[in-house]
């Protein structure tokens, strides 16, 4: 309900002015989605930590089996992609549609690398017999990274639509660009936490 009220108060404002105070980037209804999604992932993270405490040895053994290299490269890839999305959004707002198009293209390419790398991570693990049925750590690993992967794929589709919007003959809709960017950054944030929880912590 507050979303509607906020939309009412901010939506009519000038969306092109980045320095305007109290500007909600993108559509407020997308923020409703993003915050809800962050909360659901949050519940997953916290329950993961709780069950980790029940059997630390099993989880520590699981951490050691993950491929830290691919995990780290994927993190850098997503953060880089996020940077280009942020730069692209700024360019689109400044009216430089060709620049924005190029930047979003790079972001899309980086984003597309993520599922590919993930594939190279999953396949050796599954063939080595580490499946969701192995133990609770791997169940969490596959469920959380799998859910995140679904979000990445959806995000790639959204980025394609943003690019089409920027390329189209009509003037690009900045609010749509911002909406797509917001979603993509959320995917990035979730991965940053996942990276720490699955690959880094001891």
């Amino acid at each position, binding site marked *: 309900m507050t979303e509607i009220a906020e939309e009412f108060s901010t939506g009519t404002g000038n969306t092109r002015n980045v320095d*305007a105070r109290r500007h909600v980037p993108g559509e407020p209804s997308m923020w409703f989605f993003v915050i809800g999604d962050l909360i659901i992932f949050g519940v997953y993270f*916290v329950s993961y930590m709780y069950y*980790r405490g029940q059997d630390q040895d099993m989880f520590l053994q699981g951490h050691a089996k993950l491929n830290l290299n691919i995990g780290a490269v994927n993190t850098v890839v997503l953060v880089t992609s996020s*940077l280009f999305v942020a730069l692209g959004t700024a360019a689109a707002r400044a009216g430089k549609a060709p620049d924005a198009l190029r930047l979003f293209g790079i972001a899309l390419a980086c984003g597309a690398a993520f599922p590919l790398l993930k594939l190279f991570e999953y396949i050796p693990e599954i063939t080595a017999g580490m499946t969701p049925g192995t133990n609770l750590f791997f169940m969490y690993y596959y469920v959380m990274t799998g859910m995140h992967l679904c979000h990445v794929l959806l995000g790639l589709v959204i980025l394609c639509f943003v690019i089409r919007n920027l390329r189209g003959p009509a003037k690009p809709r900045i609010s749509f660009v911002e909406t797509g960017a917001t979603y993509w950054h959320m995917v990035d944030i979730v991965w*940053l936490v996942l990276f720490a929880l699955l690959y880094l912590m001891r």
Partner: protein
Amino acid sequence: MKAYLRNPLTFVWALLTAVIVSSWAWLTALATDVRKATEETFATMGGAAHHLNTTITVVVLLAAAVKAQLVIWLFMEVRHAPTWLKATTSGWLVALFALLLGFYFAAQ
């Protein structure tokens, strides 16, 4: 292109990447001996485990919180957003990491 290099967002990105890469290098160096054992036993599920390490966990989780906050604040432009949005995202972040660390230490 120079304008992009000088863009504050690029500095943020460089900072994020530096943190990621250094934690990667740090943990790789720490775990070299363990990893060797792990790769040998990759197929058999017995493999060596990491050791419980509170320092690593706290550093890594706090770094993740800072990274997430940077992305929210600067990439997502919540810095310019109305107060309710700032409060919601910060509240999420603080609550999440408080609970994560709380459950982590509750198990020790």
